[in-house]
């Protein structure tokens, strides 16, 4: 018998014995016959299966959007899962009403996902803005409307609710009154509290099982394998922290991309990062994907890994009894080959607190700017003093079998004057370090050229005074 998974699904408390590796979408659609949530891509790339996942954090119910097609049931334990059916009332809610008014739905297949995402924005923000609300829809794809009518519906929704929500606040009671949420939401807080008293699903360490972080790549690559296995989930509670200790910033293994993006600590030390993180995945994926998962998945174009490489990150590996520390740049031995024993897992990731003179930049180019996998990505971390590079770390993805730390280029830049000449030589050295291949994300020639351009882009973005653009393009 598999452990029981207990959670609240819309207005119903649910306990089930399905495998924790089963996807939440399968459970919703097949077991519960709630067919409003749609399956389209099974890789978190379209948002048609988006649902809300709410959990108690500091005695408050905090909702996030997740893509249920690649969300393991085990992770639903102890949460409030809301599908489109769980938002329906007798009359249409405000976002539903405005979608109808503006013709923001044509074939209707993507629509429930859009309504969920917009509702998420409305219930988690106090000061509405149209742009932010649209950002909340970044993970939702529509093939019919061209988005113009959807944007109009968002504008109307936001404008209608902006002032009342701002003055009244986002307490559930107000959201119900303002016709954003149905009545039963008022009992969810208590429901989750009583649920958490009982045992929801908890992971036990067992070497034979697959360890899953967010599952956002594992479920895409190995759907049938993963769903027929038993899985363990990275401990999302005890390994979930971002802190500063001595001279290091420390990230627990289960820190999600979105937590990383929103962290006050990271905002303080790496202020540009929050914005650049928008180039990575989509909000629902960032809500699930974990730092450790990204690193251990060893994709050669892993965005966050590329950033961490430039931040000179170190990994703390453990087999539950012993710990071992290894530089992230030494972790990769070849394509998807890691310096990691079978029973070891990543416990935390550390990197040095940036000095006061640091300069950091991340560049990524993909076919589509958002929610796409990079053709090439690169990050740079430079300490510059009086026009000289005191230290340099530069990384690049999509140009080698592994997420690549550009060792020689980094070394070369050290102690050099910041100039076009230095950059020119660095570009040449970088080319000698890479070995891109042609694939669906671009030809090898393109990836070489693109890395060249993106390294230039680092310098133009960071040193617009020192680097003459005219000489570079």
């Amino acid at each position, binding site marked *: 018998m598999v452990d029981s998974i207990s959670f609240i699904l819309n207005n119903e408390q649910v306990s089930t014995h399905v495998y924790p590796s089963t996807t939440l979408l399968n459970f919703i659609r097949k077991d519960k016959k709630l*067919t409003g949530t*749609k399956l*389209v*891509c*099974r890789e978190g790339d*379209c948002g048609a299966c988006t649902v809300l996942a709410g959990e108690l954090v500091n005695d408050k119910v905090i909702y996030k959007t997740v893509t249920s097609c690649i969300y393991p049931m085990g992770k639903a334990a102890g949460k409030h899962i809301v*599908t489109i*059916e769980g938002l*329906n009332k007798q009359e249409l809610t405000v976002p539903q*009403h405005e*979608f*109808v*008014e503006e*013709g923001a*739905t*044509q*074939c*209707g*297949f993507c*629509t429930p996902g859009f*309504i969920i995402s917009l509702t998420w924005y409305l219930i988690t923000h106090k000061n509405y803005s149209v742009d932010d609300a649209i950002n909340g*829809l*970044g993970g939702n*794809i529509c*093939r*019919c*409307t*061209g*988005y*113009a*009518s959807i944007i109009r519906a968002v504008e109307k929704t936001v404008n209608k609710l902006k002032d009342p929500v701002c003055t009244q606040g986002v307490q559930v009671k107000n959201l119900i009154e303002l016709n954003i949420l149905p009545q039963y939401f008022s009992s969810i807080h208590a429901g989750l509290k009583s649920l958490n008293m009982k045992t929801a699903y908890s992971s036990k360490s067992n070497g034979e099982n697959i360890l899953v972080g967010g599952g956002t790549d594992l479920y895409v690559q190995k759907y*049938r394998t993963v769903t027929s296995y038993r899985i363990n989930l990275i401990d999302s509670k005890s390994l979930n922290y971002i802190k500063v200790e001595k001279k290091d910033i420390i990230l627990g293994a289960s820190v999600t991309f979105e937590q990383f993006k929103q962290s006050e600590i990271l905002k303080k030390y790496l202020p540009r990062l929050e914005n650049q993180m928008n180039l990575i995945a989509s909000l629902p994926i960032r809500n699930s994907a974990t730092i450790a998962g990204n690193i251990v998945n060893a994709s050669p174009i892993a965005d966050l890994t590329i950033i961490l490489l430039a931040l000179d990150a170190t990994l703390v590996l453990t087999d539950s009894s012993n710990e071992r520390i290894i530089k992230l740049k030494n972790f990769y031995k070849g394509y998807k080959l890691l310096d990691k024993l079978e029973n070891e897992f990543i416990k935390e990731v550390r990197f040095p607190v940036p000095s006061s003179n640091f300069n950091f930049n991340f*560049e990524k*180019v*993909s*076919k*589509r*700017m958002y*929610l796409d*996998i990079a*053709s090439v990505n690169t990050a740079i971390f430079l300490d510059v003093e009086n026009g000289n590079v005191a230290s340099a770390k530069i990384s690049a993805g999509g140009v080698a079998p592994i997420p690549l730390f550009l060792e020689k280029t980094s070394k070369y830049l050290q102690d050099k004057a910041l100039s076009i000449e230095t950059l020119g030589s660095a570009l040449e050295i970088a*080319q000698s370090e890479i070995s891109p*291949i*042609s*694939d*669906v994300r671009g030809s*090898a*020639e*393109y990836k*070489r*050229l*693109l890395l*060249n*351009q*993106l390294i230039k*882009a680092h310098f*133009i973005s960071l040193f617009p005074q020192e680097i003459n653009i*005219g000489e*570079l*393009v």
Partner: protein
Amino acid sequence: MKNTDTMKHVRGESLFIDDFTLPEGTLHAVIFDSPVANGKIKLLDIENAKAGKGIIDILTFKDIPGQNQIGNIIQDETLLAEKELHYIGEPIAIIIAESVDAGEKAKHLIQIDIEELPAITDVRDAFEKGSLITDPVTFSMGNVEKNWDLYDVVVEGQVDIGGQEHLYLETQGAIAIPAEGNEVKIISSTQGPTVVQRAAAKVLGLPMHKIEVDVLRLGGAFGGKEDQATPWAVMSALACLKLNRPVKLLLDRSDDLRMTGKRHPYSADYKIGLSKEGKIAAYEATFYQNAGAVADLSTAILERTLFHATNSYFIPNIKVTGISCKTNLPPNTAFRGFGGPQGMFVIESAIFKASEKLKIPATEIQKMNLIKDGDQFYYGQNAENSNAIKCFNMAIEKYNFDKLKENVVRFNKQNKLFKKGIALMPVCFGISFTSSFLNQAGALVHVYTDGSISVSTAAIEMGQGVNQKIKTVVAKTFSVDISRIKIETTNTTRIANTSATAASTGADLNGNAAIIASKNILERLQKFAAKELGKEYPNLIEIKNETVFYDGNETTLKWEELIWKVYFNRICLSSQAYYATPDIYFNRSKNKGHPFAYHVYGTAVVISKVDILRGIYEIESVKVIHDFGKSIDTKVDLGQAEGGIVQGIGWLTVEELVQNSEGKLLSNSLSTYKIPDIYSAPKNIEIHFLEDSTNNYGPLKSKAIGEPPFMYGIGAYFSIISAMKNFKPGLDIKITAPITPERVLMNLYEPIKTTAPTKQTH
């Protein structure tokens, strides 16, 4: 006006194939398909797989009681492969299982030995090897053989255009339910219920009346379910009748992407002759169409390429030839525009290249050559009510084109890292199926005794709002509240011999049929009301907002009472009606005639911004004047225009189909095939309705809307390459679409010289 179908969409209550409650004992079908693009089956052993857990049966071509043939125009397509394999994804066997999972597992237990043969994927390669679907077709007018040396400027070139995945969000699927007496009901996600019915009858060896096809709605189609919903529906019916159990077949996304055809990639050669002022004197083009492994609708699609080869322009001397080439790819098929976009893209490319040589802006050449009343299209039809010039001029005035252009020039002066480009895109698109016989439709209207109205037509609702339009025209005909009207599923038992909902004609054909049926009933109502009210002239009876008027004077008789009384007096409250588009014909031995009821016109102004350093871009704005006729529903029409534009932009920018040389699709998922998202869609889409347009062929004087706006997306391509040229003025760009960020960057810069060997792998 509220589109009532959408009320269900926003609540997640609309049902699609995967949402229907299945009858007890429903089985699931999984397809075993060809792993090679070209080969011969040496051995196929299904016995091991048949013994697999949860497997009920596995069907091959040997299990087909009728003909193993589903070709629509040309009979060249088997339902299940026999000896030869023609593309990766070609269905070989149908695994029938208790669950999809069991079926998937059994796939790996089927043993197949194949003699693999070299695959052709490139269209020019196919042409050189003589691999053709059928003979080339030529349309011509005037004389293009001679006189080339008389023109001031002659430009020749090659254009390569990529295909496009439909990416309807709902994958292909069907549910077949057995009925008594070896009959079957198929619930299908198809644009063409009769196409499915006819193919199923043929394969099953049954008369068509034993097969009922029912369609509620589709989760997007865009042409991809006109002909290619058929195999899956027929397979489910085949399994259903063999096993006498309901069978559901729903393609997984990866199966759908691998097995189904897409918009046709084309390669074309053109030659254009102009005066030094920019007047086009002659145009010659040869279109090589990559049809894939079988004909599907390719020949009709190619013909439409030839119909739209000069877009909105009048060119006195013209010769265009289309060659449909057979390759080892899945059969390419209908997709919004149906070959028209490729034809228009090539003439716009020719104009772009001519403008470089003439040193005249492309917009000047476009303007100078627009078709006007009195001109004749080269296929024999006279231009009537041509709005080409009106739309073009209105776009220039309304959007202040000169100012927009000035702004672009100023921006480019001030910015080194970003360059903008601007382009105009006129569109002229013919409405009617070019196979004239398809331009017919039926409707069945019932008025129930409570005054509610049921309407059945051949139209399929796939998001384009045709149900809303039909509802509107019926409500207006009766002058009753729209809430009284329900549009029924599309069903071959209620409406026979339907034409697919395609070619933008859904609302025209079916709306007109529904109006006729409604008027038939209305006449009976008028006649009865006159008698009831003791009036002499039934034609002076009018219903206005559910109240009966006589000679302009309100009476006390209301809709519900009227209907009840009509019923009580034994007068028929139902009507079946038929509509066929008048005045159309086409002679295929001469390739002349009057193939279109009318044309739709419009012009778009497109501005793009290219990031010169990174090779990425955004489409900033698309501003359109479009000829909607008298719109039945402006919100529906606006949505069609906006959606079409963004889909058109996707086709020519980021949507890139990548195959390796063995014919394997590499862009085989949503993570590798990218369609526009909310950020990459233009920030600003402005659409203005052309004023004072009317149309005698459309219901309530409306014009068809589905396809024409798609082609405004072509403007995005030319605005991007203009921006690139604004960075590198001498740049001689090879016209290849889509213009991906890779193509932008590789065009702008020399490749990096490297001594390191470059490995090629796929």
